[in-house]
């Protein structure tokens, strides 16, 4: 290694630390007593070290308040959405990648056009539609609109296209039907792509804000992202800063753990989601 390499790492460590400060600060504040925080947030090292230390905020979150319910709602919506998106995307992706049928090009173009429609262009009509159906304040109201976004179909389509055709042809000669080829041969091969799509969808579902804000109006149906937004406007008075920060930490745990465990997939998922809409 060159000496310049160590210089580079040292020089970048400072901005990296600065980059981490807001996150460290949130975690640190969540471990300090509310009475202290009401007076000052910079007791020890500008509040970056949690002294005086307490776990009271977390205990309070789980003994009363709505955070556990919001967390559960988020988990249900995120998992439901992930399964739903995987189901419709793998099937449609395979059909578009490998099967020949009438109007194939037209359907592809139609799906491509859908990539250009942003969520904000459809959230008002979706609101009136779901209101007419009486679907608001439900899990499926939060899940269904995302299942209609064609990103997943394109991700899966690209993946299936890259698989050599020999495998299918061998199975066809053996007399295996198309649906069986899809289910028994292609899906197992598609596991890495499905993992990428699953993570992309889960992150989106967990962090989505605008649609839940419009659709879920009853606090019992809030996701954690929405619930956190509802308590942050009056954090200082009612809840106490430490407790709000603890909610923030709890709300971030699943995505941060997901990120640290599957970093490669997360990066790939966000890149794919980013470049393709």
């Amino acid at each position, binding site marked *: 290694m060159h000496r310049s390499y160590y210089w580079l790492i040292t020089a*970048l460590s400072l901005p990296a630390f600065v980059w981490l400060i*807001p996150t460290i600060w949130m975690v640190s504040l969540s471990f300090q007593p509310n009475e202290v925080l009401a007076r000052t*947030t910079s007791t020890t090292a500008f509040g970056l070290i949690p002294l005086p230390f307490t776990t009271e905020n977390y205990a309070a979150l789980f003994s009363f308040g709505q955070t556990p319910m919001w967390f559960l709602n988020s988990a249900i919506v995120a998992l439901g959405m992930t399964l739903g998106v995987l189901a419709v995307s793998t099937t449609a992706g395979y059909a578009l990648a490998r099967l020949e049928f009438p109007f194939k090009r037209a359907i592809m173009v139609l799906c491509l056009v859908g990539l*250009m429609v942003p969520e904000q262009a459809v959230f*008002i009509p979706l609101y009136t539609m779901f209101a007419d159906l009486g679907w608001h304040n439900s899990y499926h109201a939060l899940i269904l609109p995302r299942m209609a976004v064609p990103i997943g179909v394109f991700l899966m389509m690209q993946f299936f296209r890259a698989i050599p055709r020999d495998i299918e042809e061998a199975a066809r000669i053996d007399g295996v039907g198309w649906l069986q080829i*899809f289910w028994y041969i292609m899906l197992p091969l598609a596991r890495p792509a499905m993992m990428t799509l699953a993570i992309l969808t889960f992150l989106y579902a967990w962090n989505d804000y605008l649609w839940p804000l419009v659709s879920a109006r009853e606090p019992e149906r809030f996701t954690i992202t929405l619930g956190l937004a509802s308590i942050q406007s009056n954090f200082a008075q009612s809840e106490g800063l430490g407790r709000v920060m603890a909610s923030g930490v709890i709300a971030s745990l699943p995505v941060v753990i997901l990120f640290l465990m599957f970093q490669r997939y*997360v990066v790939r998922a966000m890149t794919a989601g980013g470049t393709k809409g």
Partner: protein
Amino acid sequence: MLRDKWRKGQGLSQPQAAAVLLFPFLAVYAAFLIYPFFMGVWISLHDWNLLAVAFNPGAKEFIGTENYVRTLWGRNIEWGLFASPVMQTVGVLGIGLAFLGYRQGRLTRATALAIGIAGALFVLLPGFYPGEDGRWYDRRFWPTVGNTILFVGLAVPGVTITALILAAALDGETRAKAILRTIFFLSQVLSVTVVTLIWQIMFSPRQGLIANVTEALGGSPIVWLTDQQFAMAAIVITTVWWSLGIAMILFLAGIQDISKDIYEAAAIDDARGIKAFWYITLPNLKRTITLVVVLQIILHFQVFGQSHLMTQGGPNDSTQVLVRYIYQTAFRDSELGKASAMAVFLFVIMGAFSLVQFVVGREED
């Protein structure tokens, strides 16, 4: 056994199998994306009050393009080349840059065309102003669009330049670099509410870390979120912190595609470090840079949470952005028709950029 099971489904022809596999997606796609999209255009042509129509479905009135006129236009609107000198100068410079860049072969045709069109719009649109006795029908709409463009204009270069420098510095397979990459990427996975929660308190003049540090250094704290001069800056800082990760990762992927031979050849000529970055990395990343910029424009034009949660559009509407205005018009003022007209406006802008993204993405394949 397994073979018997497989044989059963053999009867389906390719089109039949395709129909079975495509049906679930096409059904949700038609119901929750295609239909709502056209329904949105339909709503925008009506005087449609959210509450009135909820009670009585007949309480809407077809008014044609009236919502668009009420949003976009005004009384006695005139056009002049010097109505908004700053924006229009930027536009003229953009057109010049696109023309020169294309002539000298520094920009591809699609990029030049995109910059040129954006420049022309910058000359054309800010040139409109209410003449004598005139006024905009909606005084808040164009300033809101202006704020959104300002936000995009600050956040996109901020993210792009920082991400590019970090990506160039952190390219490589060492453990230290991997850890640093993780640190810079981490904030990207947080939700907008967590990010705004952290930064709202970071910026707080009484409890904020920034204020505490400034005070310890002997300065007087800035009232970031309620000062008209700093509110937009605060939101941009928050956004750069939050969304640097994707851009950095895209740049890293682009840098890894550049052949190592070029760098080795350059190293013989003593071009390393910053020189190599300037003469090799940057020119070879042109396409990636364009893609990242367009992507960021699309992404940040939809900004909502930062403004809604940190400043509530204030102070004095200085951080009011388009999506927040649509949200308020629809769900606070109950004017679904007008809100839908604005949503269609947003779609047209975003659609144009998506088209550019699509063309640039395919250009070199």
